């Protein structure tokens, strides 16, 4: 087998793994968009905030230490204890649920019935706000996140491919774990929305707000629920990206990458988010591999958006989106 083809296969596999990450972020978008029509730009910052909180709790940092020290002239930094990863994750989930309550009570309850574009702007405001809060609480330095996931090259795949092709593929263990966790998460979410009472309420609200309201479903409750779920998805995405490349500001920029993923998949479809993520992940990896060197590289910056743009011109509702029917 020619070398180029083998390289291309490796690139494709790695692209698939990146695609899983994109899909994870896109998933959080879809959850909120389906239930409330809010296009949550803050999803990426939520992932950053969740990962920062997790690291902060794990290392026993004092929240708002910088602010407190500045105002009271104290010198606080650490509580002096370390929390095991499992409990830290649980505590972070509690924090994200608290955040969901805050968002619903103070912001989006007051914006019910506004135009989608106003809601979108509000989430951009929320993204700024949350980013500032995250920096104030935990500082803005790059943090290492370690919750005990295995890292480094997967020896089994390396060996197996070496025996077949005479060339060992480099696949990170972390990516494999990410793919598995994402699969479990999606399966869990689908099961939750199909078979539980809350899940049915969620789907009813997504279908028709007013009809759901009239059969006695509390919109407020469902919205807090989806924001909490989106927070948990954000935490998972944050853990994955954070263990891969450290918890830092660029984490919040993956929200932008998730947008073309959503456009490809359609804003309202969970399978769409997954498939869109994989297409974008593989597409940009292959494009950078095949064409990137000819035109200067770093094409990942824009390839996803241009692909989505071209795709949308031919199919405006995305792959799995509901057909757009316009009436006057």
């Amino acid at each position, binding site marked *: 087998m020619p070398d180029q083809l083998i390289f291309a296969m490796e690139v494709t596999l790695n692209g698939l793994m990146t695609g899983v990450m994109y899909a994870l972020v896109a998933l959080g978008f879809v959850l909120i968009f389906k239930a409330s029509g809010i296009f949550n730009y803050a999803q990426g910052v939520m992932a950053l905030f969740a990962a920062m909180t997790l690291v902060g709790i794990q290392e026993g940092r004092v929240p708002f230490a910088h602010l407190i020290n500045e105002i009271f002239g104290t010198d606080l930094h650490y509580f002096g204890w370390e929390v095991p990863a499992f409990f830290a994750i649980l505590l972070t989930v509690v924090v994200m649920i608290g955040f969901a309550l805050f968002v619903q009570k103070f912001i989006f309850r007051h914006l019910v019935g506004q135009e989608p574009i106003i809601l979108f*702007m509000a989430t951009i405001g929320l993204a700024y706000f949350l980013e500032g809060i995250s920096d104030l609480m935990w500082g803005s330095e790059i943090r290492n996140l370690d919750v005990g996931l295995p890292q480094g090259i997967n020896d089994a795949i390396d060996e197996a491919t070496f025996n077949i092709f005479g060339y060992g593929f480099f696949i990170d263990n972390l990516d494999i774990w990410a793919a598995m966790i994402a699969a479990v998460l999606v399966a869990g979410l689908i099961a939750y929305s199909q078979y539980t009472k809350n899940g049915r309420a969620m789907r009813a609200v997504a279908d028709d707000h007013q009809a759901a309201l009239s059969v006695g479903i509390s919109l407020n409750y469902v919205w807090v629920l989806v924001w909490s779920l989106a927070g948990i998805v954000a935490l998972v995405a944050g853990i994955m990206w954070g263990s891969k490349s450290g918890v830092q500001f660029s984490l919040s920029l993956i929200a932008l990458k998730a947008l073309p993923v959503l456009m490809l998949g359609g804003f309202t479809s969970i399978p769409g988010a997954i498939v869109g993520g994989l297409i974008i992940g593989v597409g940009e990896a292959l494009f950078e591999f095949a064409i990137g060197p000819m035109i200067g590289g770093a094409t990942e910056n824009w390839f996803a958006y241009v692909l989505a743009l071209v795709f949308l011109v031919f199919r405006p509702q995305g792959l799995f989106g509901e057909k757009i029917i316009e009436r006057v």
Partner: protein
Amino acid sequence: MFYREAGDFKTTYAEDNQTFPIAFDRYRYYAVLLIGVGVVPFVINDYWASAILIPFLIYAIAAMGLNILTGYCGQVSLGTGGFMAVGAYTSYKLMTAFPWLDMISITLLSGFMTAMVGLAFGLPSLRIKGFYLAVATLAAQFFLIWMFNKVPWFFNYSASGQISAPERSLFGIAVTGPNAEAWVKYLFCFGFVFVLAWIARNLTRGSIGRQWMAIRDMDIAAEIIGVNPLKAKLTAFAVSSFYVGIAGALLFTVYLGAVEVGSAYGIVKSFLVLFMIIIGGLGSIFGSFAGAAFMVLLPVLLRNILTGVMGWDTALATHFEFVIVGALIMFFLIVEPHGLARLWALLKDKLRLWPFPH
């Protein structure tokens, strides 16, 4: 008392159609112009020019441009930063290739170039609508920035990849470069703002502006009553990009002087201009000015209070600034989704009756 239509008789159609039908408004407008031209250039110093006035004027142009597209025609764009970069790089290439060209022509040509690029990226808007379009404009943003970073022709093969504005003058007075004085830069920008605002105001209340608004309010209905969506959307994209391109060119030539494209025209700038028109008011020329003033003044004010008065260190103040800006955006959207322009209109309505309650 003094702010009312009563007693101000209109005897010609021209008077009836004027932009400021109330005499007090008219005099206020002349007074602002008079102060802007006759007083400010004589008292301006470097700090005021570079921290507040020039960025305010430049961002006001950008905000008017985006407001024409988003506020009047309803097409949300997140590509403002990329289009500003087109204006900046066009003016850079023109300045270095044709050293004898004067700055006004260079700036206008940059605007036209950006209008062309805007037209090209506006074409998908005929099929893609709403959010999908907003995300599609991100393609313009990221692709353009990447192109200016990677194609060396655009930055004249300079080693650093930056572009810096050479000295160019207008009527023998330096406008760009390190020797340009604050009042010259200020007046140069002021002239552009005045002319562009005048054009924008008259475009938006004319036939083409009404077509834009019809498309914004409901595009299918507009099409049925005979508005050509192709023409309306594409003109909106072209005019908007023209404004944004001029703002980008001025930001580079007059204000910054040297530019690294990723940091000066990144996605952050797109959002900044978007915030300006939301806070100022969508679909209002006055709102573009109010929003630009607000977003330029707020960080300066916060920084002065937090680091100057309270003595915090700058990193902390920056983080706090994020929290406050974010919270203010949400606050504005909750209490007044139509922005400062609506507050201004309410104030004028109250003033009309004052001092009587009804």
